[in-house]
């Protein structure tokens, strides 16, 4: 599969949007060469706001810009975009449903060298808890592009989480991104894996490895973490014996919460792959962290085998 960098594609897509819509403005907190807003700055300096290392002010400033009719995208590492600006997002943006796009970059453990202070295991959880906020996690660069464009067309507050890593292309251009809709990545007969972000490609690897062992995995990309379309999720679980969730995020408040809640009362076995209630740490590369935290295809495959014992769930039950 072709590898691409989502933040690179994000940066290029902002320029496309800037060209198409004079109301698109971009705010940055001194990380423009990491978040890749540097391309927008170069193309549209008059609509680019360097806000210094002041995420709180950047976020509220963006609220003001949206009140003046602009479509602001705020940018920082996810840990700061969501964490340091939580109250600004909550109070000034989400209560009044302002049209601000908050983009958290270098999310999850992808900033492997910088350790727990710069990694984020809880951003999706805290963002999901805020009413009115749409929460999105693209699975690859192509989806990042489609998502970046879709949220410009959607009027309301959005949090989008982008990894620092290159990712294999798992989605296709002909699968249009629609807020709320989970997407089928690979069909299978036995167990469905609902995966988020980076873990979609890991789930595909798990599916390939299990194929030879006679277990067929269906892989579904859940790139909208809120609002949740429970009915759409349930369609993908029909005929399955078990469910696995896979996310590069805390098991509290992210995809595991979405799926276990959506399937409450269904009686279908569910296993969850994600980060136990703990922080990240420094490592020499991303793979070391994946292995240390169990965010691997092997772990997904193991969990799939565990759930592959359930009875087939009928349409009526889910």
């Amino acid at each position, binding site marked *: 599969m072709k590898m691409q960098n989502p933040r690179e594609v994000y940066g290029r897509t902002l320029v496309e949007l800037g060209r198409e819509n004079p109301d698109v*403005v971009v705010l940055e907190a001194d990380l423009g060469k990491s978040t890749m807003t540097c391309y927008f700055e170069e193309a549209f300096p*008059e*609509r680019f*706001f360097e*806000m*210094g290392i*002041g995420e*709180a*002010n950047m*976020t*509220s*400033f*963006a*609220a*003001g*810009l*949206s*009140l*003046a*009719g*602009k479509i*602001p995208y705020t940018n920082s590492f996810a840990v700061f975009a969501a964490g340091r600006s939580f*109250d*600004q997002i*909550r*109070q*000034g943006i989400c*209560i*009044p*449903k302002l049209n601000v796009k908050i983009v958290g970059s270098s999310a999850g453990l992808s900033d492997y060298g910088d350790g727990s202070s710069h990694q984020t295991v809880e951003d999706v959880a805290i963002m999901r808890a805020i009413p009115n906020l749409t929460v999105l996690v693209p699975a690859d660069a192509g989806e990042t592009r489609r998502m970046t464009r879709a949220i410009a067309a959607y009027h309301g507050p959005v949090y989008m989480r982008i990894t620092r890593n290159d990712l294999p292309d798992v989605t296709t251009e002909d699968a249009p991104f629609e807020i709320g809709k989970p997407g089928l990545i690979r069909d299978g007969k036995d167990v469905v894996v609902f995966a988020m972000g980076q873990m979609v490609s890991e789930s595909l690897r798990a599916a390939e490895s299990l194929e030879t062992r006679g277990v067929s995995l269906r892989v579904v990309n859940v790139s909208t973490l809120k609002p949740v379309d429970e009915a759409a999720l349930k369609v993908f679980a029909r005929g399955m014996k078990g469910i696995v969730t896979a996310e590069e995020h805390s098991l509290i408040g992210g995809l595991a919460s979405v799926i276990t809640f959506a399937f409450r009362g269904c009686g279908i076995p569910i296993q969850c792959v994600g980060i136990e209630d703990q922080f990240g740490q420094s490592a020499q590369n991303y793979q070391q962290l994946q292995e240390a935290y169990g965010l691997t295809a092997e772990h997904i495959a193991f969990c799939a085998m565990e759930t592959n014992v359930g009875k087939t769930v009928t349409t009526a039950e889910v």
Partner: protein
Amino acid sequence: MVHQTRDIKELERIATLIRLRIVQMVGVGQRGHLGGSCSAADIVTALYFAKMHHDPTDPNWPDRDRFLLSKGHSALAQYAALAEWSYFPKEESKKVKTLGAMLQGHPDRLKTPGIEANTGSLGQGISIACGMAAGLKIDGRRSRVYCILGDGEVAEGQVWEASHAASIYKLDNLVAILDNNGLMATAPIAKRYNTAPYPEKWRAFGWHVLEIDGHDMAAILEALDSVDQIRGKPKLIVAHTIKGAGISFAENRPEFHNGILNAEQYAQACRELGADPAAAMEG
């Protein structure tokens, strides 16, 4: 029907009416932000009844001047002004802070016509005002953004992040007014957590700064007019005010930051503001 005026006596009469409305909204036996609403009452009056371009029949008129209460807890002062201008029916004032009410404890733009932004988590309103001013500049609009800050609020670091940004982006369409009543919620600022001196700090941040008596209507108007001439930098008017101004027993008293009026105090406040208490209670 109210109208814009430059008559100082008339503006003073309106300011007294605004204070009466604040007292009426606080009512008897319920908590209300009396102190900070009254300290800002003259400034709010000068802005809504003399200075700002606004249209109650079209609250979203693109060329209006914007007013943000960064010290959102003083919303009663703004509600009183909006009600006089009929942004919403006067009956709404009687339902303030009740379940389902249009008038919330802090400004909510989705619920209340005429409210520009959701403020109340201190330090954020001034940042929002900056972003708004920057957005208006991109579009070449001549609207001004007025933002009232509290002096207790100045302890919030975000105020200073915003003050940097306003200066760096040369937001000369932004006028901040510091309601310098000298009291934080619990005590005098100078004794408990002294964030002064204000003019020196804001000048160091690159702002044009004026100091006035925030209860002198002529001085408020003169300051608001004079800063219009300043180009290339944001402006701050440090308004020296008295918390609870206009209600003798509440003046300079921290307990009326968000205090409760008993029936006797309510009656006295009404009388001091030239109203019959029984009639005031009826609205």
